[in-house]
């Protein structure tokens, strides 16, 4: 099971947080802070696994992360997940974002966190991996976006284009 998925930047600003276990807002912030603290002090060329995130608790759990440019993608998982598998999953996630946003950068995530959530929802559901095939994910996302577009007419169009 995946317990939580966090994205934050090099300064620890959260860009996406998805918890698959209920936590209060304060605890969530604390977890993000702590995770950032743990992850950020690690060198670039060390391994991507980290034990001992105290809050998401349990010795069973591990942090698996990747660092892309200004962003950290952190997955907190328990022992039923394959470590290397999750690393691949993060890669798929980022590549999917790249496809959906066309050269994704931090700004895309900042302004369209809802879209990122929607993409993530096609990959991971309730803490379990739903789909790992990028083409399938992109197809579903596109279809939903199309559906959304067909629903909007001029006055109701959310001004997303700015």
């Amino acid at each position, binding site marked *: 099971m995946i317990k939580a998925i966090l994205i934050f930047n090099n300064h620890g600003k959260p860009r996406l947080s998805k918890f698959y276990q209920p936590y209060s807002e304060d605890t969530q912030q604390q977890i993000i802070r702590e995770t950032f603290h743990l992850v950020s002090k690690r060198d670039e060329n060390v391994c991507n696994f980290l034990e001992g995130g105290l809050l998401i608790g349990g010795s069973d759990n591990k942090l698996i992360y990747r660092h892309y440019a200004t962003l950290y993608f952190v997955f907190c998982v328990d022992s039923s997940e394959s*470590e290397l598998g999750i690393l691949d999953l993060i890669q798929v996630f980022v590549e999917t974002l790249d496809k959906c946003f066309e050269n994704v950068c931090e700004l895309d995530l900042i302004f369209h966190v809802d879209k990122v959530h929607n993409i993530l929802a096609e990959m991971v559901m309730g803490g379990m991996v739903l789909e790992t095939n990028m083409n399938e994910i992109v197809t579903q996302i596109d279809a939903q976006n199309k559906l959304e577009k067909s629903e909007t007419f001029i006055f109701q169009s959310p001004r*997303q284009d700015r």
Partner: protein
Amino acid sequence: MALKMVKGSIDRMFDKNLQDLVRGIRNHKEDEAKYISQCIDEIKQELKQDNIAVKANAVCKLTYLQMLGYDISWAAFNIIEVMSASKFTFKRIGYLAASQSFHEGTDVIMLTTNQIRKDLSSPSQYDTGVALTGLSCFVTPDLARDLANDIMTLMSHTKPYIRKKAVLIMYKVFLKYPESLRPAFPRLKEKLEDPDPGVQSAAVNVICELARRNPKNYLSLAPLFFKLMTSSTNNWVLIKIIKLFGALTPLEPRLGKKLIEPLTNLIHSTSAMSLLYECVNTVIAVLISLSSGMPNHSASIQLCVQKLRILIEDSDQNLKYLGLLAMSKILKTHPKSVQSHKDLILQCLDDKDESIRLRALDLLYGMVSKKNLMEIVKKLMTHVDKAEGTTYRDELLTKIIDICSQSNYQYITNFEWYISILVELTRLEGTRHGHLIAAQMLDVAIRVKAIRKFAVSQMSALLDSAHLLASSTQRNGICEVLYAAAWICGEFSEHLQEPHHTLEAMLRPRVTTLPGHIQAVYVQNVVKLYASILQQKEQAGEAEGAQAVTQLMVDRLPQFVQSADLEVQERASCILQLVKHIQKLQAKDVPVAEEVSALFAGELNPVAPKAQKKVPVPEGLDLDAWINEPLSDSESEDERPRAVFHEEEQRRPKHRPSEADEEELARRREARKQEQANNPFYIKSSPSPQKRYQDTPGVEHIPVVQIDLSVPLKVPGLPMSDQYVKLEEERRHRQKLEKDKRRKKRKEKEKKGKRRHSSLPTESDEDIAPAQQVDIVTEEMPENALPSDEDDKDPNDPYRALDIDLDKPLADSEKLPIQKHRNTETSKSPEKDVPMVEKKSKKPKKKEKKHKQKERDKEKKKEKEKKAEDLDFWLSTTPPPAPAPTPAPVPSTGELSVNTVTTPKDECEDAKTEVQGEEDDAEGQDQDKKSPKPKKKKHRKEKEERTKGKKKSKKQPPGSEEAAGEPVQNGAPEEEQLPPESSYSLLAENSYVKMTCDIRGSLQEDSQVTVAIVLENRSSSILKGMELSVLDSLNARMARPQGSSVHDGVPVPFQLPPGVSNEAQYVFTIQSIVMAQKLKGTLSFIAKNDEGATHEKLDFRLHFSCSSYLITTPCYSDAFAKLLESGDLSMSSIKVDGIRMSFQNLLAKICFHHHFSVVERVDSCASMYSRSIQGHHVCLLVKKGENSVSVDGKCSDSTLLSNLLEEMKATLAKC
């Protein structure tokens, strides 16, 4: 209305959307909080509007704010409003917000039930999808109960997109509403074979999660998963399944045996590191679960360790980390194979990556021996000095202590060294583990009697330098060490060199800055010290000295009396009064020392931490029984207030002990005495027998510290542990010299020596005698303590509720709640998918059907039994490499060409019922009792079989009869007769190397066989530069690396240190497989030792028998029958006489050596099947007569068949 909408939309134009909000926050960096609170006010206004678009926009912004840590639970109702919007755009926003902020405590969540149900049955798949996604995050027990049936329906939706989501969410539903597991399980299982890979993957995912928590319930799915594993190409699914098998194997060792081969194949073939790693992990799990009995057991371990070493040596830190992680699993069961990689692991300790260092530390635990403990700890100590972060340093500290104290200080040869290490560790500032060090000091000082003198001297030095520690107290935990120091100095004060000095150190004013509990110990131990000083002085006749000490006490104790800590204060004032009293007595010249020391007479023995728990409940005492009968609940007190007294009087006589009870009482008294004797906290009038036991042999028994141990007599303030390393080396050297001398003498005398054969330069562990012969006092336990394992299970574990027997038939009460009146109107598209289970359970509605139901229940019970046996069947069809496989049960009709078209499963069920009807009451009873776990049953059966086997006459082979009744379990007694065999046969050997090989066909590449050659170095030289050259024939060619010619040798990809064996695999391409053939080859290598290197050769002949081209392929009897009927197989037969081996073992031999699998077996007749790598079918009918065996074979190639039969004849002739 339209106008209003337009107006709303225009309003909206001026609202902030999410992007504006984000931009705004970024522009208000200084007063972010203020800006956000402004925005929240705006959002509150927006939420009050009727326009759903405005609301959705507001909720969208709230979701963002939630991420920043703002509580949005107040908007829960608005979120639900947005969720119920008809437009997908808004619905999605609503569900996202709900998934981010709803939890079980959200009170409005129950309002969503109907909305979600509506969305689930929406014609748009994305509405359904978004509802499922959202629900997966906030499902509550109520929602799970109400929606379980709807979701289950969706599991059979026409769109795979919905199916996979529905399957996945079921896990969450199970967690919240465990009752749904059993009704939903059949369908979930069905989804394992869904045509869509995504759905399949989801089902695997869910079952893996379920099985991880309660593996035993899912064992019956093993065959299905096995099939998936061998057929699936999706690495995700494979990883999950392989992980699942890792969880299942501990429960079923036979499964492990079956797994080894495909897993090994995967390890060799896969290019995905993630898959390779999980395979290795599961192989490790299998090997752990199989204690022994695997022929290529060590080869598998070797393979794992080899692969892991490659991972660890990789430059990718991730692989390095995982390699170490997996290595630590092997360490637990096969420490030897890991120990050979000590160099690598020590290297990892220096890695710059903390995660890797930590993993390496874990491994170190298993690396230590008596020989290298000091060296390793020394290395760790240098790391402690270098470590920058406190967490890592603390980890090091605990590891050092763990390593040293493991298995009762097994590896410590010199406790003085250990004490010095502990003292050195106290120099660490800011560690959290002061109490750990303290506990170790106490433990060692109490349990290792010989070390007390040294320990006391060290501790007094510590107390003396207490100002060092006290200077930065409170902040760090290291001052805990003083707790131990004070206690040791006090308790063992007789060993103190200068007790007076220590006493003064303990009475320093600085001490009052220590934490209360430490001061309390100080106070108590000051008195102990005082008592011993008093005695010394009085014995020496120094009355003045004694009085001076008393004066010191009277002067200094008041500082403790003023302590804020109650404990300290109490003890101090009590003792102060005592000392004052003594002072009075001393003034009168009364000798007091005796009486004061009597206060602390006796010795404290270590007590095991669980001792109290383990005290057995005396016989006849029922702790749960009421002493007085409780008042029954039905009668309220108001009604019969008097009854209480009345009844009590009546009852009393009953409780009066009768004469017979006197005995009982005496016995109890005795038991209590025993208990008290064992209880160290119970103050005894006379020394208990146990204590006497420990006292008497104690002192004389401890062989005193060896004199040659040149411990510095003058103990420096803080000792250096390093010096012990040198000392230890010298000591060992001396010991070795002595031993050599002895050995020489022994040689002359020609005496037998069992252990001392260490002619090698390295000495084995046992040879190192400890510096002090240490009598490690074991911790006391009460007599006849119960060896109970604490149930570690957490009663609050949410997964415990899912521990449900899935094979039991469904009862009526278990069907999922259905919203009936709604069902008709909502079930549009998925109508045809009404779950089958449900239909089944709906049928027996009326009372009249009760009887039928009973019958059905019975049937189901039987079915269930069969299911369990199906697993056995599956586990035993294809022969595992080592022990003999057991053939499956067959119908008693016994014809080979069975015309049924049913699946083999059904067939064997038929067979079972038939047989059960006819014979064997015992078995029938078994059925009736219906033990819920097949395992237990198996056990019982085995016993039965054993007894039966004895009774039966020897004419009938014991296997046959049981096989007719039940599938025989692997590991059934008769198989024990068969010695474990290896599929590896000897190829060639000389003094340097031994070659064994196994030839395996592979189905993927037709016409190719893999030859696995195990090379074992039996010399003391390193073998390297090994090359294998094989002369190709027209028919068989060795696959060589590209560009190399036919005459070049193929290098062996490893070197062999002395005593090591390893496996190399080569692929050969075979043109025609109908004939056996031999290939000549040579192994050339360089043997290098201290004296030099020589070039050596070893010739061998590879024998490709026809059997080696066969691949064990299971075949169902219907397919088998069709095959025989088809008529395009040629036939041939042989007969071998003089066979005494049981049929069972005979079949096993054929299976093992010739790669056949049993299709059916009846009495002494069996049909077998195999397939060649080129796709020839080979069918056999094996019949056993009195003393002979006849084999009829049918095969699509007659030459192949006749050659095979010849080979078989040779095998059988040996039987």
